[in-house]
């Protein structure tokens, strides 16, 4: 079972805070990978909020391919960041030639266009790059979106933190999702590493998804080109969120109603009973059976935690106004925000969706039974 560490704050903070929290939950990850997604970036990216950032890693050949492609597509590099790699004896990390996060200027025809259009361009570009580099593994790209940065590598999270030099103040953000992987996907593969990202939506999950195949078949048949990949059975959680909130335009809480629908007798108590009864039937293939706990964010910066319908995985949310952590285990919470009021910690029930509003202003517990 992977370990999850998410922090949201009104001030910029370092991803090392997430990684140190993951370190306390070490028995739950096995060195098969670290995934980091940073949103609302500080440091040099603070002034580049409107520029899409392409994150990934590659070989020398991959870099050439990337540059050629982006140049041809009309993207111009605005700013380029590469971690300062530190190699320490004993590290079990096989470094790649390049890790990068590059802010690009849009090709000129796109700059004034609507959000949906540039979002489409960015996703198409990322998927093209992914397809080009996937065969020989010369190029991995994880996200291409404004104000979001992704880092992924195989290894122990703490060693990777040191390897990437993540204590460097140049890399900070207000929302960071981090996952320490326990590989259960047969092969250790970077595209199977959470958190997964699509058009401003991001989730990470622990547990397995026993309903993976019907969900994948449902998503891939929606006619949306971005629903692909699925090297991990958890990637569908991100795409369900995207489908629910962006494509169908339902409020965030309906994500919970879709992945873990209420029983019919419970639905009757809801003020929107008629609507969710229809949703339950209509989106039946997206129902999960767990065991899963999902942590994610949506483009406005709301971050949330939900459980499967039997609460077969642990999860805790705690903190105070200005900084909240969403952790898979208490020890991670104690490490991330030790000075909080522990009596205010929230352990979401199987009906709860815990949401922290943007800028870590407020934590809300939405109960599915009451709607």
């Amino acid at each position: 079972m992977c370990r999850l560490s998410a922090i949201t704050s009104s001030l910029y903070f370092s991803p090392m805070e997430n990684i140190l929290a993951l370190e306390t939950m070490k028995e739950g990850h096995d060195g098969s990978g670290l995934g980091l997604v940073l949103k609302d970036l500080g440091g040099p990216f603070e002034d580049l909020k409107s520029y899409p950032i392409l994150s990934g890693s590659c070989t020398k050949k991959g870099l050439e391919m990337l540059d050629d492609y982006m140049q041809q597509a009309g993207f111009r590099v605005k700013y380029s960041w590469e971690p300062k790699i530190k190699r320490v004896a004993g590290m079990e990390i096989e470094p790649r030639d390049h890790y990068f996060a590059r802010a690009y200027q849009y090709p000129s025809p796109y700059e004034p266009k609507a959000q949906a259009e540039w979002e489409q361009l960015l996703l198409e570009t990322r998927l093209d790059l992914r397809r080009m580099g996937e065969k020989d593994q010369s190029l991995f790209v994880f996200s291409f979106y404004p104000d979001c940065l992704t880092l992924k590598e195989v290894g122990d999270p703490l060693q990777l933190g040191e390897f990437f030099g993540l204590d460097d103040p140049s890399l900070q953000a207000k929302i960071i999702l981090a996952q320490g992987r326990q590989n259960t996907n047969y092969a250790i593969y970077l595209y199977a590493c959470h958190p997964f990202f699509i058009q401003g939506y991001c989730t990470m999950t622990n547990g397995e998804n026993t309903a993976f195949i019907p969900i994948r078949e449902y998503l891939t048949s929606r006619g949306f080109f971005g629903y692909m990949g699925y090297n991990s059975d958890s990637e569908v959680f991100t795409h369900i969120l995207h489908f629910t909130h962006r494509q169908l335009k339902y409020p965030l809480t309906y994500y919970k109603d879709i992945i873990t629908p209420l029983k019919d007798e419970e639905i009757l108590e809801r003020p929107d009973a008629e609507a969710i009864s229809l949703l339950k039937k209509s989106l039946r293939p997206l129902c999960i059976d767990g065991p899963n706990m999902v942590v994610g964010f949506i483009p406005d910066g709301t971050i949330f935690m939900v459980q499967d319908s039997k609460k077969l995985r642990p999860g805790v949310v705690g903190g105070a106004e200005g900084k909240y952590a969403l952790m898979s285990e208490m020890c991670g919470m104690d490490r991330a925000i030790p000075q909080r009021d522990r009596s205010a910690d929230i352990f979401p029930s199987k009906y709860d969706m815990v949401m922290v509003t943007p800028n870590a202003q407020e934590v809300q517990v939405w109960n599915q039974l009451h709607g």
Partner: protein
Amino acid sequence: MQEFPYVIQWREDRCTRCGRCTAVCPQQAIEPAVFAQRLVHSESGTLVPSTVRKVSHGIRQVNDIDRYCTGCGMCSLVCPNMAIVPHYNPHHKFLFHKNLGGTPYKRGGRRNDPSPSTLDKLKFTRISMLTDPALDAGRHEFHIRTLLGRILPPDKLPLKLTGNRLVVEDDQFIPPVREIFPIRIGSMSIGALSPSMWEGLAMGITYLNEVEGIPVVMCSGEGGMPPRLLRSRFLKYFIPQIASGYFGWDEIIRSLPDMVEDPCAIEIKYGQGAKPGDGGLLMSYKVLKLIAGIRGVPMHIDLASPPTHQTKYSIEEAVAKMIQSMSMAWGFRVPVYPKISGTKTAQAVLNNLARNPYAAALCIDGEDGGTGAAYNVSMDKMGHPIVSNIRDCYLDLVKQGKQNELPIIAAGGMGKTGNLAANAAAMIMLGASAVDIGKYILQTAAGCLGDEYNRCNLCNTGKCPRGITTQNPKLYRRLDPDKVAERVVDVFKSAEIELKKIFAPMGRSTELPIGMSDGLSVGDKAIAERLEIDYAC
């Protein structure tokens, strides 16, 4: 006698000559006989052999192909002294002879193929262990239910956002959808079945719904339903079927104003897996007062349903208009769907239905389905296996993104060898929303004697020795409807437990794992490739 499919073994030393076996034999395949024997014996102290002629009485199998022994075993059942038993003869040449007078062999039953079915070769191999702990079939809540009806995709739902809540817009048509148990009792008519059998099934499913809370539904078959049932609140557990003879529909339509509940659904029969391209035929000797009354016909005449709906000439007529007419009769409150026989062209029908917003489902009946009467050649050699037919249809819907909109129901051969829950679960994981049973319930609830070795299969003759498929009161009184109902309840309660035992280790409990094909494997590469599932050995 060695050319016959079953050979009677009679033991003179055990027989009391009571005559019960000859009286009960539905075929008159055995008869009392007189045997003359020449015995050698000696009566004196020294050996002085002499011969005597002895005349004895006993039982003899008749050497007449029209009175062949079907192996039903009723003779053994009634014998007080275990003196008689039929034995299957694997070297028989029955089909070489059974066409006297130029009349091909007709029978009831199923396809006579005892080899293991594809369904029985499928195994459930994605067992959740440590990475995703199995659920507990005894502790966790399971919801073994399926949906019957046209399900709107999310982008077609009449929803609008009011504040932060979704609300349903008024005056928008939402197709009716029923939540039912995923194993149904398929179409067997009152007429094909005896009153005792049909009543037993009906009582059983009513009890399951009303008392056990398991929403099992049953299709009427062609031939209508008892008028009192049509006007009762129990109608919601039944699916009236309309087929090419329209038998019974006068009474159904006349009952419409008096109905207090809508039926569960309406099934339009276009084909039957056991005898594709054949119509129905209820022989005159089955058309007694009750049947004639329900069907709205005179007594003692043959009731033939044509192979096709005679008033229709195209798929648009046959499917779209009939679905619309039936929907309209109940104010669009009842799901209406067609049933076809398994065929290579099933996807063409499926795609037509996928584009018809009123089509509520598609039921496909495979070659292993049963029938009350058909030509042997139809049953044995016509039809399409159900498994790949259903899989192809499901994957076709997946390609179109409509896999959750149009439920596919699989019929024909479910539980053929007794593994009902396993067969149903496998079909569901391949893409079916529900399965239908027919022969299985007759065998488990009423002790039907038929099997794939052509045992019994006398359904067409009206002489069913169990009283299941006969209108002869002397025969159907052998069947106690209450006992049948009890067994129906047993069957569905145990099937529900077995389905949980299958789904729990695979980590599924909340929704039916429709299309969860990664849960299945098979030890046959060709089948694995064809069904797009794993090969495991």
